[in-house]
Each structure stands twice: as C-alpha cells, then as structure tokens.
C-alpha cells in the first residue's frame, strides 16, 4: 500500500509572531519552526497503517516548503516514514492553498498513492483548504477532521469517525481517499534514537517545479493576501478588589462611568 502523508513546516505555536514591516509575512528571525501539529497525527496514522498492512507498504512524506523544511521531514523519517518528496522552489514561496494543492497533486500522482493523510488545518494560516482542493484535483473522496480510522480487512475501504457538533459521525469510504486528521486520532510517537540515525540515510527526493513539469506556478494563483496586520492590542483588565461588596460595587460603577465611559 502506498501511503502518503503531507507535512507542512509551520512556526511553533509558542513562537512570538511578529509581522514584518511590509505586512507581507512574518519576521522569521527568532521563530522556531516545527511540523504543523495536525500533520504529526497524519504521519503517525500513516505509520500505524503501514505497520498493520505490513508487506511492501510504504509511507512517503510529501512536503512543499523551503529548504529548512528538511529538518521537519527528517523528523517524520525518524518517526518511521520510509522516504520523502520535498518540493522546494523559490517560485512557490508565497504559496496559497490552490498552488500548494496543485503542486502536491502532481507530486503525489508521480509517486502513486492509495491513501493520503494530512492535517485538518495548518497551524500557521489555519486555512484548511489544501486537503479539499487536493481531493478535487486527484478526484478522490475526502474525509475531514477524522478522530478515528480503521482500514477494512481487504484494505480497500476504511471506516472513520469525525467529531461534529454534539457527537461523532461514522463514515465509510473507498480507497483511495484523503483524510485530514484531528487531535485525538492518535498519540504521535517520539522518534527513537535508532530511528533518528536511520533517518539520516533515508532518501529525500528534492524537486523543483520544473521537475514536476510545472513551469509556472504563479499563473495559477487564485487568491492573494493583501496585507498581514497585527492583532490590535486588547484593553487592560482591571480587577476591583476588596472584601466589602457594596463598596466594591460602588467603585465598579464609578470605573464604568468615569474611566470606561460605558454608563
């Protein structure tokens, strides 16, 4: 079984994000990057499926990203993925979901696939579009926000659960399929040291757009980010203290009237 897991390099959730002066992106300096959290669930689920299927099943990591994304790819390889395709081209630096999906679709088709796992959304721009566009481009079903996954005995069907408002939805799908993973689907493993050592020797096929036969990605842009804006600073919170409730209430009313001018 050819298992594909998508992986995006994204700023660590704890990173202090500052928007650059031009408003075209973030200041990368001093920002730590990691595997986009939901993609870790995708890698883990891919590995579990491979372990279950056995035989010549293989997990291939596919990533569109800058050179630095190699570090995250190696982490996925250390977890146990077999090889990787890294599409790295300055032309797709300012990517948007449609381009990313188009590039991924081409790379995945070239590689061959039976099932694709990805994150339910990237933790940086939170768009949650790539999987859907990709599904359309590959003309396969998609199941989003999966919280459980089970492959059938024959390996051509899967049963999944998706968390929805107030309950779970149970879905059955044919393979090939693209599945976007939600927290709770699994506990991603911590790479073992032999895994880390082996990962150093695993193959990462780095490709430029030309290698995929896609000369001009820019032509496909469907949307453009106009400007990135910092979140306006929230007002300060004031706590009215004191044991004596009536006095505290009086003070609160005064503050609301005089300072907040809300009354």
């Amino acid at each position, binding site marked *: 079984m050819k298992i594909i897991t998508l992986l995006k390099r994204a700023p*660590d959730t*704890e*990173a*202090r994000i500052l928007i650059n002066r031009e408003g075209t992106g973030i200041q990368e300096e*001093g*920002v*730590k990057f*990691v595997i986009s959290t939901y993609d870790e669930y995708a890698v883990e689920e891919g590995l579990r499926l491979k372990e279950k299927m056995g035989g010549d099943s293989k997990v291939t990591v596919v990533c569109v990203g800058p050179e630095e994304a190699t570090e995250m790819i190696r982490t996925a390889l250390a977890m146990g993925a077999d090889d990787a395709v890294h599409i790295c081209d300055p032309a797709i630096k300012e990517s948007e979901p449609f381009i990313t999906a188009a590039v991924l679709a081409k790379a995945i088709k070239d590689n061959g696939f039976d099932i694709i796992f990805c994150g339910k959304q990237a933790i940086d721009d939170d768009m949650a579009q790539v999987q859907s566009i990709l599904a359309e481009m590959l003309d396969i079903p998609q199941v989003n926000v999966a919280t459980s996954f089970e492959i059938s005995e024959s390996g051509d069907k899967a049963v999944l659960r998706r968390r929805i408002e107030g309950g779970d939805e149970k879905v059955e799908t044919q393979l090939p399929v693209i599945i976007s993973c939600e927290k709770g689907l699994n*506990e991603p*493993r*911590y*790479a*073992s*040291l*032999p*895994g*880390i*050592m082996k990962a*150093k*020797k695993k193959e990462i096929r780095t490709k430029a757009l030309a290698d995929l036969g896609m000369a001009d990605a820019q032509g496909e842009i469907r949307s453009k980010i106009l400007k990135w804006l910092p979140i306006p600073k929230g007002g300060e919170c004031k706590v009215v203290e004191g044991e004596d409730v009536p006095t505290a209430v009086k003070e609160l009313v005064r503050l609301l009237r005089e300072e907040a001018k809300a009354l």
Partner: protein
Amino acid sequence: MAIQGIILLVIFVAVLAAFGYIVRLLYRLLRKGVDEDRFGQWAQRVNSVVVFVGAQARVLAQPAGIGHFLIFWGFIFITLGTIEHILGMIFPGFGFEQIFGTKATGALSWLQDVFGILVIGSIIVALFRRFILKPERLKIDDPKARREATLILGLIFVLILLMYGFRGTAILMDPGEVSRAAAPLSHYAARLMSGWGMNLPIANGIFAWIHHLIIFFFLIYIPFSKHIHILGAIPNVFFRNLGPMGTLSRMDFEDESAEKFGISEIQEFTWKQLLDLYACTECGRCQVACPAYLTEKPLSPFRVIHNLRGHLMDERKRLLSAGGDGDASPQIIPETVTEDELWACTTCGACMQECPPFIEHVQKIVDLRRFLVLTESRFPSEMQPVFKNMEVNYNPWALGYASRADWVGDMPVPLAAEKKSFDVLYWVGCAGSFDARGQDVSRAVVGLLQRAGVDFAILGTEEMCCGETARRMGNEYLAQTLIESNIETFKKYEFKMLVTACPHGLNSFRVEYPQFGYEIPVLHHSEFLLDLIRSGKLRADGIEKARGAYHDSCYLGRYNGIASQPRDILRHIPRLGLAEFPRREKRSFCCGAGGGRMWMEETLGTRINEARVEEFLGLGADHIFVACPFCMTMFEDGLKAKEREDIKVLDIAEILLAACKTNTDSP
C-alpha cells in the same frame, strides 16, 4: 597423620577447590560486563577500605550497625582460629603459637573468645529485629531472601556455640591447652560442660567436625546467597566512585548504525555495576531512605539490586557457556525491573548516600531509562511534550524561547551579547526564566548582584536548558544536544565564573559539562552571596522576627556538599530563627522533583512533597527556605495540598534581599 586428619584434609582441599572454582566463576561473570575504568588513585582506594570496611564507618551510621561491626570482626578473628584448628586436626601439633609466638596467639585466642559471645548477642538482637520488630528497612517481598538471612544467622549462632564446645572440651581434656586469661569464656564453657559426663574426646571431635563442616558449607553456599557480599563488598568499596557522586556516564553516539542505546540485558552493565550486585548486604538502608519507597511507590533501590543479582545468577550459565552470547538474551525490563519502578526514581541519591558498600543505584536506573527512551521510545506520555519543548524551545515548559528573558522586565540586566567580557555569568536556568516564583528569585538574585556591584551578565535568549533533566530522564541524546549548544555559547564570551540559583544546573556545569570538555568555576548563589556578605559587599540588617527551616536540595547538600553556606547566609540575618529538619544536609529528604519527576504525574502511592511538608510542620516554624526552584514549587504545592498557605516558601536570595533592603545606604 591420623585417619581423621586425612579425611578432613581431603574435604578441606575439595572445598577449597570448589570455593576457588566458584570465585573464578564469579570473576568470569564480572568479566562479561563492559569495561569501566576504576583504576588509579590507589592510596585513596586502600584508605576507603580501611575506613569503610575496617572501621565500618557507614555501617555504624545507624545503631543496628554495631551488630554488624561485631559480627564482622568476630568473623575475622574466629575464622583465623578456625583455620588454626583445622590445620591442627590435619597436622597434629600444629599451632599458630609456633609461628607467631605466645603473645600474639594468646591475644587472638582472647579476641575469638570475647567476640564469640558478642556475636551471639548481636545475632539475638538481629533475629529479634527481624522477627519481632520487623523494621521497614528489612522488608523485602522475596521469601527466599528472608529464609537465607535467617538460615545464615542461625548457622552462625550454632557455629559459635560449637566453637565454645570444642574449645571448652579441649580445656577439659588438657587444662594447660589455653590459659584462662586467653580464653575466659571457653574456660567458663568448660566448667559448664564438666558436669555433663560426656566422653570428652568424642564430644570434642563431634563439635569440631560439625563446626568445620558448617564452615565448609558456608564456603560453597555463601557465593549464591546474600552473603556473597562477604566476597563482593570489600572489592566494591575498593573500586568505589571516588569522583563526584552520581555523575552519569557519557554516551557515545558516534556509531550511526547502532540499533540499540542504553541497557536492557544484564551483561551490558559494566563489570563494576555487576560487582555492585555482589556487594549488596541486603541491609535495606537504601530502602528506608528512598523517597519513592517511603511514599508507597513500586520502587525500592534494595529490591532493584536484589532482583538484578538474582537475574545475573539465573543467567550465569548462559553467559558463561562458550557461545552463550548468541542466545536470545532475556530483557531486564519488565521481568526483573519494571517501568513503574524506573520512572519512580527522583535520582535523589539518598540510596547511594546510605549504602555501606557504596553501590551506585542511580546510574543503573538511568541506564535502563536510556534504553526505554532512546531505543524503545517508551515512557510516561507526559514526558513527550517535555522532550519536545526542550527540543523546540529549549525549556521544559511549553513556552517560547524568545520569552526567556522576559522576567527581567525593566530591570537593567546586561546581556552577555552586549558586554562580551564580564566577571560573572549569571545562569538563570529554565525555572528562573519561566516559572513565576523562579522569576521572583531571579529578580532577587539580580537585585543582590547589583547592590554588591558585581560585574555580571545573563545570556538572555541564548541560554538553553542545561540538559540535566533530559539526561536524568534517560534522553541522553537530547541532553547532549543542549549541552553542546550551551558550551558553544559559553565559549563566545569571556567570564571568570558561572553563578546559578539552580542546583541542577550547578551539578550539571560543575561535574557533567567537563565530560564534554568545558570547565569553568561554578558557584551556587548561596556560595557566591555568602562571599559577598563576608567581604562586606552585602549587609543584612534584619527582618521582622521569623523562624524558618532550610531544606537541603539533593543536588546541593548531598551531591555537592553545599549545606553550610545557605545556613550561614540565614544566620547573617538578624532576628531570623533557624529550625532544622530531622533529615538534612547529606541525608536530606527529596522534595520529589528530581530526575524529571517534576514533569511526571505522581499517581502511584502518596506524594513525596507532602511527606516532606509534614516533616516541616512538626518543626513549628513559619518559613521554609529553599535554594532550588524545583524545591520551591514542590513545597508550595505541598503546602497548598495541606492547606497551610500561611507558611511562606522563600529562596535564600529573596530573604537576603529583603533583609538588605532595610538599609537604604548600600550596601
């Protein structure tokens, strides 16, 4: 030579041969272990044996040790006498007197006689303890261990009676055999027996024969029982770790094709670690010092050692057979040592501090943890985010590394990157950077350094976790990554010393970074601040009346022997009364946070920090003084759980700054 002598000679030689064979077997088994350099510093090694074997210094640290002291020395004198007696039976007329003279032989005889009765007394006390008092420290859930201990005590008891039996009957047969002065008790025994109407030569022969046969039985039986320590303890004391306590071995990651890291099979331990197993006396002192054991966790250092020895002995045939290495080797985890045991350890070192034959428990526990973490990636789930946080943000909290120096606020704290060259590099540490109370302490330390006009700087966001926690959690790979990065950073700047308020960082820099080629003087803030007080750069004018007890952190008091300095600082503060924990200094009791336990759930048994808080509450003091950010957290949590938040936990830097602030003219 009489027929009896010939038979005894044959048995004696056969037993000695068998004993020699067994000792050789034990030696060969040791050699199956990995190499470890414990050679050199010979004078100190001999001295260790004199102090800790001869004078039984550690054994005597507890009253029950007096019994061991008496049995130990009694055993030596009586064995010498037994050898003389056996040789006398084989070669009639032989006696030490001909070789060593009357005086020395008389003295030996007297010692034998007197120690005989002392040994009997000790054994009665020992059996009384074992069966009536049943102290916690002798508790072990292996019935075989109990049977063995009882059998051996019982046999020694019988041996002594038999010794008086054959010595007494010999006196009855020939009153000139030995003088009353040289054998007062044997003479007394002779008087007792004189009325029994025994056939003296036959009785004498029977007593002597049974006595010697028991001795022979011992020689064969002992190496396979807990009394193997008679063979193992002395070399173990001789080869003990003479360096800083509990320094972990440095792992080598050069071999990229390695499939395995850490230890999972018994022969992967070093020969010295295997010798440790021979040396255990099963005294249980480690057990009753162990914070995990005392709070009903599945770990007892005593049982770990006991079970590892049992496992080694079970595996000896396989290990020693010619091609034995090829067989599937049984795994230590979980049959011999369980994961719950391994993760319960705080690496506090109390076990190693107590252990009379200087067994090193912590390295073994960490070796096994290393296997679980590095090779198997198997550990309590709460540890994974901790590792990840350390990898990504260089601290165990899930907080961005860029905010590492936010605690500074608007205090003017110079950065190393700006200053380049300075006297003191103040190592803030992860807790000092990210934990709210830790930050208070950092600000207090900076306040004091500024007051005293110290030329210092901090690394700010260049500082990374020192790696100590990762190392003790078994993640040596991550630890080494952090250590190497920090060393790179240190090398960029010029400074005379490192000062830190974190004992874990202190221990790391002082004794572990040198393994990676980086050495610099490292002072704990208590040492540095005390120097500032003594040189008049800081003056504590006092505080409102308070009474507090200082808690010794494991990595400060025990590992690094820093116990007087923090106390001296507190003594410099007028109107501050000091109480003392019953367990303190080198023998202090862990707060529960070491060895990565700070980051794990404490779901088994009761809570270590609460046990320590209870110890404090008995002192009737109103302040707990600490010198470690993790102890701070553990105490504050413990006090909350006990609903005693009226008690304040302060770092020594905080109380010192408060005391200095009362004088406005600096210092």
